[in-house]
């Protein structure tokens, strides 16, 4: 498993950097920012599980 990860992400070399105008950030930080945006979007659209019947207060049960 470690070998597989190492073959995809080689950390034993200088990091990759992205440049846009005056903005410079590492590829690793860019990936983290994209992941945060994806998780945020999913949190807004993915339905939340319904409350289990046994956890519902008795007065609300049908």
């Amino acid at each position, binding site marked *: 498993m470690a070998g597989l990860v190492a073959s995809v992400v080689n950390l034993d070399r200088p990091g990759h950097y992205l440049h846009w105008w005056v903005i410079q950030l590492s590829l690793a930080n860019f990936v*983290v920012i994209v*992941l*945060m945006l994806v*998780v*945020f979007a*999913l*949190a*807004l659209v*993915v339905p*939340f599980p319904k*409350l289990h019947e046994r956890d519902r*207060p008795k007065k609300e049960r049908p």
Partner: protein
Amino acid sequence: MTVPPPVRPAADDVPGSWTAALRRRAIDELPPERLLPDRQPAYVSSWVYLFGVLTLAALVVVIASGSILALKGPEWWHHSSLGHFMNSVHLWSVELFFFFMVIHLWGQFFMASWRGNRGLTWVTGAVAFLASIGTAFTGYVIQSNFDSQWIATQAKDGMNAVGIGAFWNVLDFGQMLLWHVLLLPIAIGIIVALHLLMVRRHGVVAPIGVDADGNLIDSGTTTDAS
């Protein structure tokens, strides 16, 4: 959310007692059912409301792993397998802490969660975020490796450039270590505790267009959304 009536002085309270007055004030502001509620409004059933508590959970792991690193010292975290592991647990819990905290910040920002007299809740959250950045930075410069020396020298130039280099010497390992393991964690602990108490005091903010009881607000009329 139903607001409980204020707690009035009990008949057997000693007149003028500051402890009785403080107790009444504390119970008035944060009655037990509000401090540890067992129910939340219907609108809280959304993943976006989870990121605050996820941030808190990550912070617990950060503090626990950091405490172990502080007890064992740099020799241990640099030269033993368990030390390497605990060092990584500390790093990755910090990564998750910031990951969740930024999403929590986005969620609260777009919900304008300073509404409903929650301004101080928002401010304490923002201050906790800034203090966390300072704590992470001091953590980077006390790794005691080449990476930390590089970060410290670059930061020293940056701090001098903006005129605050006289207040902190980021090349001073001892000073940075004490900021990282003592002063800033205490500050974050106090700010986060205040933040949580304020969240409990005012309740979780409703989405825009929904009142505190979960009813849709539509041009002055309300309809049940729960």
